[in-house]
Each structure stands twice: as structure tokens, then as C-alpha cells.
């Protein structure tokens, strides 16, 4: 149990540094540290599927962010924050904190699944009948691709749409900058 607290403190420190530092590159690296801490936590909580996905996406995202960061000439943040934005973010954080206290008070203890509290939850049916009904030994694959196939289709659609949008926007921006260069 102490491992989780150590990881939690590590992630908190990294997150605070990521927000507070002036250097964009160190901020990006601290975001990566938060992700690695989360991935180790998932691994220790016996969720290897999530741990693999988390670490792999974190590494690739870090590469993208670092490339996008060091390509800019200006890597230091200058200027103060706006007063209105500061007030709004503090109010929103306070509301989320109040809601979080209520929600976290009702959760089961750390490390035990929430559905063990609820009798007849859908997940218990999945665990009991998943292997026989879908034939997949990995119960996570059985749930996300068979029982919850619609969710995965939605995810794939979101990814497809966002990547089409990003490609179109970035390429038109590229073309414009090329045209400006030619003139």
C-alpha cells in the first residue's frame, strides 16, 4: 500500500512542476512523468491492459509534444495570467473539489472494484459467462470488442474524425506557409 502513496506523491509533485515551471520542455517531461507513475500504478493494481496502453500512448504523445515544443523558437512562457481567468479556474476547481469529496466518500476502499458492492452488476455476468460466450481468454478483449462493441466503434469513429480533421487543418496551414514563402 505504501507504494501507491509514494507513486501518488511523485505524480503530484510532477504535476505541480508541470503547471508551475516556465520552461515548456521541462513541463512536457513532467507530464510524461505523471503518465509513467499512473502506468506503474495500473500495473500494480493488476490491470496490465490499461498499463500497456497507458505507457505506450504516453511515450508516443511525449515524442509528439517534444517535437512540437522544440520546433518553436519561443519555449519560455512570458507574461502574467489574466485576473478573470484565474478567478474562473479557482471557482471551477472549488466546485469540482466539493463534488469529488461527495463522490470519493461513497467509493469502496482503494484497490477493490466498485462493482463488488453492487449485487447483480453487469460486470459480474461478464466475468462469469465471458469465456463461454465469446471464447476470448482475455476478459478485457471480450468486453470491449464483444459486449461493448458499440463503444469501441464510437471510439474508432472519434479517432478517425479527429485525425482527418487534424490532417486537413495542418496540411492547409502548410500549403499557406509554402505559398507565403514563394511570394
Amino acid at each position: 500500500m505504501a507504494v501507491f502513496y509514494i507513486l501518488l506523491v511523485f505524480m503530484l509533485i510532477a504535476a505541480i512542476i508541470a503547471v508551475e515551471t516556465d520552461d515548456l520542455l521541462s513541463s512536457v517531461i513532467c507530464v510524461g512523468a505523471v503518465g509513467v507513475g499512473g502506468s506503474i500504478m495500473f500495473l500494480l493494481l493488476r490491470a496490465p491492459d490499461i498499463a500497456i496502453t497507458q505507457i505506450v500512448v504516453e511515450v508516443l504523445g511525449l515524442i509528439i509534444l517534444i517535437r512540437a515544443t522544440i520546433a518553436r523558437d519561443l519555449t519560455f512562457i512570458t507574461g502574467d495570467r489574466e485576473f478573470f481567468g484565474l478567478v474562473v479556474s479557482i471557482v471551477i476547481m472549488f466546485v469540482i473539489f466539493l463534488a469529488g469529496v461527495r463522490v470519493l466518500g461513497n467509493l469502496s476502499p482503494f484497490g477493490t472494484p466498485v462493482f463488488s458492492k453492487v449485487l447483480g452488476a453487469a460486470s459480474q455476468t461478464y466475468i462469469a459467462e465471458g469465456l463461454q460466450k465469446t471464447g476470448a481468454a482475455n476478459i478485457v478483449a471480450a468486453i470491449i470488442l464483444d459486449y461493448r462493441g458499440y463503444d469501441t466503434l464510437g471510439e474508432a469513429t472519434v479517432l478517425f474524425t479527429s485525425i482527418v480533421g487534424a490532417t486537413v487543418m495542418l496540411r492547409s496551414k502548410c500549403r499557406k506557409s509554402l505559398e507565403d514563402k514563394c511570394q
Partner: protein
Amino acid sequence: MKGMTIIVKTVSSWVKVLIFLFGINIILFGHLTPGGGFAGGVILAASYVLLMLAFGRDFAEKNLSLTAASQLDCVGALMFAAVALVGLLYGAASFFWNLIHQQYLADKATEFKLVSAGIIPLCNIAIGLKVGASLFLVILTLSICCKDFKHSTPSTKE
């Protein structure tokens, strides 16, 4: 950008094969071991990103061009939708119905074997293709854009 030093190039020319095979392994055994289409696809994309970082963008684009990556992306998405539609058109007429498992594999005790679970391996392959191609596409487009951005704006520092 012409790539990195000869040490990085030599090491990455060996390692990229292992990373690629590991991604294929994660995708193909997604219904038996932890992992699956999404994680495996990201690992496939990572092997191409390693290629791009070590050897430069032109070399990676020669291996998998922008057009080919977008076509693979569309093929993956269409394959996933087609697997879902097969369950709707044949058999129990419900979207994502596990046709292959229910009709051919259910009474053959195929648990823990590679050929099992019906449509789940097919879905894993489709998602792996889609995610790998699309993430590589994002990095390729970003690197093209960043290069032009760097060249077109006069740098302030020296």
C-alpha cells in the same frame, strides 16, 4: 533533417524490427494476453516513428508514404465496420453479433487457442491497422508542418 549519428542509425535498424514484431504479437494475441488492437497499433506506429527520428522524414516517407498511411487508416476503419455489419446481415440480426464464434467455434472447446473468440481477433487487427496508420499520419503531418513553420518564420535567436 538527415537523421542522427551512425550509432543511433545502426542500433535503431536492429531494434525497429523487434518493435514491429512485438506490435504484431500484441495485436494477434490480443484476445489471449493483455494488450489488443489499440496498444499494438500504437507500438507499430512507434516503430515507424523511431525510423523517422533516426533516419529522417524522407526515409520514413519512402517506407510508408502519406497516401499509403491514409489508405491503411481507411482500410482499418472499413474492416471494423464490415466485421460489425456481418453480424447484422447474417444470423441473429444484431450489430456486433459474434457470428464466427457462435456458429462455428462454440462447441469445439477452442479456449486459450490462437484461433478462437470469433470476430475478436479480426476486430483487433482492424483497430491495430487503423490506430497505427493514423498515429503515424499525425506525426508525419506534424513534422512536415513544423519544418515549414521553422523555415518560413525568421528566427529571433541569432
